[in-house]
């Protein structure tokens, strides 16, 4: 499919105009999927801009990825919009990287209330720390597992 | 005025619910009386496996694709066959799909409960036995004027 990515390019352009230095990388992954990598210090401002100016009013999830070979965790906020019907299908992956030995990030609960459970899951599964999170406790693994955070790559289980 | 209308409407709706329910007293039975009446499971249902010993080469592709590693390849004389542990098989039948020699087949047998765990291990010989014939098959019909009901397969 050779569809033009006009909406996506415009979004990226707006973002880059407003945050010329803080956005490290912004690409169109495929139709209606945008990857935006930002500096961890500035994520609050960019998130606020995305929510208030561009209409990305709800998160569809938060993922954490363990790149143990590059010694970093990547935290990905998946953001979508309901308020703006023209960009309902557009999904922004807002990414930030934190070093693996000091995995500290800023919580975005005060921007999107919905990320609370997702961030809690990242805390227990990867051992990340979110500053400003209202309840940094275990969610699923309470009573289930008390070893190291199980989703880290170095944690291996007897498997085939 | 309005509360009375609401009450009357509520009473009418209650009555409607009762009549709708009571009408179903005169419908044909829907419940299958299981050990006597069985649902006519169609061919292609993914029940337990049937192993054709003559076709099996013991290549082990079934054990490789199995999502749960419930298949072990065991030796019989100088040949190798799969052995299933049904306490772990999820009946996805990817093994049947991926078998290059068409040695595996789905059967409609599903009632294979046991008292002990080790009885759930099915040796190649046991897998090679054809499933038992079960009679009294029933299907479901929605054609009747009085709703869905079970009918014998022969009548259908």
């Amino acid at each position, binding site marked *: 499919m050779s569809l033009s990515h006009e909406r996506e390019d415009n979004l990226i352009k707006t973002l880059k105009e407003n945050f010329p230095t803080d956005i490290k990388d912004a690409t169109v992954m495929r139709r209606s999927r945008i990857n935006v990598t930002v500096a961890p210090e500035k994520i609050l401002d960019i998130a606020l801009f995305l929510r208030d100016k561009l209409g990305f009013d709800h998160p569809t999830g938060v993922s954490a990825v363990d790149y143990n070979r590059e010694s970093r965790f990547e935290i990905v906020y998946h953001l979508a919009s309901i308020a703006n019907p023209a960009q309902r299908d557009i999904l922004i992956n807002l990414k930030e990287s934190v070093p693996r030995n000091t995995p500290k990030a800023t919580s975005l609960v005060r921007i999107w209330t919905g990320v609370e459970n997702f961030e809690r899951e990242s805390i227990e599964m990867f051992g990340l720390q979110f500053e400003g999170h209202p309840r940094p406790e275990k969610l699923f693994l309470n009573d289930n597992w008390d070893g190291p955070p199980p989703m880290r790559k170095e944690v291996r289980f007897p498997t085939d | 005025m309005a509360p009375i209308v609401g009450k009357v409407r509520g009473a009418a709706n209650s009555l409607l619910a009762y009549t709708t329910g009571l009408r179903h007293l005169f419908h044909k039975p829907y419940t299958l009386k299981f050990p006597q009446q069985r649902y006519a499971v169609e061919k292609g249902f993914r029940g337990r496996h049937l192993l054709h010993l003559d076709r099996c080469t013991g290549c082990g592709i079934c054990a490789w694709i199995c999502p749960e590693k419930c298949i072990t390849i065991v030796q019989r004389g100088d040949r190798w066959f799969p052995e299933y542990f049904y306490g772990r098989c999820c*009946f996805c039948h990817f093994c049947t799909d991926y078998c290059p020699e068409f040695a595996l087949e789905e059967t409609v047998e599903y009632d294979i409960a046991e008292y002990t765990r080790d009885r759930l291990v099915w040796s190649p010989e046991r897998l090679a036995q054809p499933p038992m014939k079960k009679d009294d098959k029933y299907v479901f019909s929605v054609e009747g004027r009085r709703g869905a009901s079970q009918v014998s397969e022969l009548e259908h």
Partner: protein
Amino acid sequence: MSAQKPAQSDDPIELLADSMNVWVGKLSDIVHKVIDTEPIRNVINWARMYSLWPVNITTACCSAEFGAASGARHDLERFGVLPYGSLRQSDLIVIEGTITKKMAKRLRMIYDQMAIPRYVIAMGDCAISGGLFHDSYSIVNGAHEFLPVDVFVPGCPPRPEALEHGIIMLQEKIRNSKVYPQS
């Protein structure tokens, strides 16, 4: 007073009570034996067979097929299986699927609170051996690791008919069992 053993009392009433205890114990043995004879046992087992009330606990996704089996087409109440809220009055645990470590504790607690006789059906692969999740970090590989299981019903999930077949097998087992399993 010695700490190891209570001293033999000289009180005649206590002596009498001790011997009474012995008598009562003997009597209960006799009663157990009488009850375990053929006609009485058959009546008791018949009653137990057809009032298997399962506890209202669902461990995982096989509950969908348990629900279907309780529903209109299969109707488990034909076998006297009626899901019930109170632990003390139920006789059966149908373990419906994966047992996580978190749930296993609760399951054992529930089993311990139930009155004897109590029976366990392991429904589905996960309850038998861990099934699809056998290499996961948070589950128990099979109910047999911490509960005495009576019938194993394989399937992922089993058809409602297969569960009914398992219940018929459990009834068959109860028919041939003793009234007091320990004696």
